């Protein structure tokens, strides 16, 4: 079902009309399912209208898969209902936690990558896939903190998670770049080491320097165009693993739809480039 997806765009309410009318082949749109978990009304009607013309990806932020607790059954049920209603081409979530002891923290929070955490997250991903009757993709998060106590490297952790649960991975190239800059490792080495086979989707987004700390801390703000360094990593990745559905994410300082669409066209052109190994 995902093979005909090319490059997609995050869907924002301000762009509904332009998104609905856009005729591009293979174009798809991604939304946060939490924004559409309503009984009725214009929000869900807009999404259904877009869905009638384009494929949709549901990119969750609140299952809190890395919490030391099972996903909230009520939230999982609402996600399953939305999945039945929208029939998304892709479903994804994050290697992070947000809901803890009933309180929702609207962010993607870090944790020490231990064996315990891997067992818990594997169980949570399996429960989610069982409830949705779908394979989901798990995204590498952005990192800001130097944290002691990681028993696993992130790529090994994600690879093992995919092995244990059969889930796919969502590789956010901007998150790799931001994390590598913040924590002091090579983004290129990370990209080159990431397993290609389980990658179901790729994210590209913009980042900004922290208002107080400047270039010493990059923040995954999604409020700017994709940076040149991130485009270079993306081209390198696609040359190695081949084409994958690729999303341009933009959540803040929203430009005209045509500006975002131009970034989407650039990603689409990269996806059409023959693989390095096939040349």
């Amino acid at each position, binding site marked *: 079902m995902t093979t005909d997806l090319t490059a997609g765009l995050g869907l924002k309410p301000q762009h509904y009309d332009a998104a609905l009318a856009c005729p591009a082949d293979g174009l798809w749109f991604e939304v946060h399912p*939490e*924004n559409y*978990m*309503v*009984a*009725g*009304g*214009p*929000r869900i*009607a807009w999404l259904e209208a877009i869905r009638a013309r384009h494929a949709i990806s549901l990119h969750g*932020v*609140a299952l809190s898969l890395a*919490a*030391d*607790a099972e996903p909230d059954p009520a*939230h999982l049920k*609402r996600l399953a209902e939305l999945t039945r209603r929208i029939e998304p081409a892709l479903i994804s979530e994050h290697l992070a*936690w*947000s*809901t*803890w*002891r*009933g*309180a*929702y*923290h*609207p*962010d993607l*929070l*870090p*944790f*020490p*990558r*231990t*064996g*315990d*955490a891997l067992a*818990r997250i594997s169980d949570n991903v399996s429960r989610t896939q069982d409830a949705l009757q779908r394979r989901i993709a798990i995204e590498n998060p952005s990192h*800001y*903190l*130097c*944290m*002691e*106590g*990681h*028993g*696993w*490297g992130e790529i*090994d952790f994600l*690879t*093992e998670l995919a092995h244990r649960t059969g889930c796919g991975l969502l590789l956010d190239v901007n998150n790799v770049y931001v994390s590598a800059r*913040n924590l002091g490792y090579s983004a290129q080495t990370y990209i080159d080491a990431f397993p290609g086979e389980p990658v179901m989707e790729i994210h590209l987004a913009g980042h900004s320097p*922290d208002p*107080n*700390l400047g270039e010493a*801390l990059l*923040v995954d703000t999604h409020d700017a165009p994709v940076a040149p360094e991130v485009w270079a990593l993306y081209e390198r990745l696609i040359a190695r693993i081949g084409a994958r559905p690729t999303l341009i994410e933009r959540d803040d300082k929203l430009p005209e739809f045509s500006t975002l669409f131009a970034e989407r066209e650039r990603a689409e052109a990269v996806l059409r480039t023959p693989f390095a190994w096939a040349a």
Partner: protein
Amino acid sequence: MGRVMNAGMINDLAPGALARFQDGFARALLADATGPVTAFAPGIAALAAQPAFAVYRNTVIKGCIDALQANFAAVAKIVGDEWFRAAAAIYVRAALPTDPTLLRYGADFAEFLARFDPAAELPYLPGVARLDRYWTEAHSAPSQAALEPAAIAGLAPEALAGAVLHPHPAARWAWFADAPIYTIWSRNRSGDALGDDLDWRPEGALLVRPRDCVEWIALDAAGCAFLDVCATGGTLSEAAQAALDAQGNADLARLMSTLLEAGAFGRMSFNNNQQIEKEHS
């Protein structure tokens, strides 16, 4: 797998370590950023002491405040950005969202404002917050066609008296005995200036969504009392009596027509018991 053997492996042997980490991290997120980090467990203190910890702290609090500002647009317009965000920050620290659909965040924000000392000079603020909340509830309520006015046109007077009109799932109404809340709310919601012509009087409001978008009209005390009875399954005759009790000079025919035209009702049923009682009396 290329598993890194280091100090972190100790965590693998400690059941509940992840839960303890999350308890500590969540507490540090909401703690006073200028306070000492020594209040936290050593592992959490080492994270909270890093300048980058502010990214998480700010994102969580900002996400909640942004949601409240979107959900309570008229309140925010009345008090201004700075006042609203300062008040919202206090609310957020006391009550994080329990539902990740942030459209539903702030269910008791009106009650918070009623207890909030700095808002004491604006006694109409909780009422405005209540209408903002009703807008959100109407906006996301189940979609359903409204009962057509013609549906009751052909009913015999006796059948009409025993009919039960069920409010539309999106309909919300409230009577405010102390202030012109409807005028204050609707002018701030629609962007109209709140002129000097504000007549300080009791007012009610009805919000409906008979089609795509939320619509609203002013509703008098009789109308609000009428709908209160309809919502509990009372008959039209009972609702009419409540309307007259609330407002002796109520024009019932006009009220019915106003409510039906607005799309306030979703369906109609008949209270058969009452019919049977009448027949045996």
